[in-house]
């Protein structure tokens, strides 16, 4: 079946512009996660959704970052007024119920802020 789909695959934007990154999880997966992977670093947790609710937003780096999930499915990560330090690969993952069930990752969006 279809895996986790992320779009766009790559995004180049100018400093100060807003960007939206999209994640389509596996159908039926109630849990959805966003992680950020900066060059030479591991994955940094950003936010976790259970259904449409975000019980944990603690990883969002600043108030320029926000995320929403609608219909218990698609999620959008928005970065306002992008900065060069926002350049990274943004990975989305979903899991069946969030309780120890395996995470399935998408291929990520590589964001480059010039």
């Amino acid at each position, binding site marked *: 079946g279809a895996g986790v789909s992320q779009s766009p695959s790559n995004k180049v934007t100018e400093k100060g512009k807003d960007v939206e990154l999209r994640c389509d999880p596996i159908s039926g997966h109630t*849990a959805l996660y966003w992680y950020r992977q900066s060059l*030479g670093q591991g994955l940094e947790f950003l936010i976790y959704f259970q259904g449409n609710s975000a019980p944990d937003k603690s990883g969002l780096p600043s108030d320029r970052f926000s995320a929403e999930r609608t219909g218990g499915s698609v999620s959008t990560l928005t970065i306002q007024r992008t900065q060069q330090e926002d350049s990274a690969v943004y990975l989305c993952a979903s899991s069946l119920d969030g309780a120890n069930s395996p995470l399935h990752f998408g291929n990520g969006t590589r964001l480059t802020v010039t």
Partner: protein
Amino acid sequence: AQTVTQSQPEMSVQEAETVTLSCTYDTSESNYYLFWYKQPPSRQMILVIRQEAYKQQNATENRFSVNFQKAAKSFSLKISDSQLGDTAMYFCAFLSGGSNYKLTFGKGTLLTVNP
């Protein structure tokens, strides 16, 4: 807070040989889970193997096995009969039994399998 340390930024191995990737972690919890993920150039993170801390038996998945030393907080990955397709970044990750959703990752080890 938990930390995961991978002390080998890069490793290489000849095709068909065996290689071991190291991982140590720090936690005060007794109930947790450990994972190894593989990230090829496609960027997709793929689960390689998983270990529950309460299980003493080391997990195995075909050519992949772990050496889980709970007292030493060590969780190494052994890849036997290495194949060219094993070339990738490998990440060790920790999941608290309490939070059970937030993975903490190490910085990764780039493994290159040479023909």
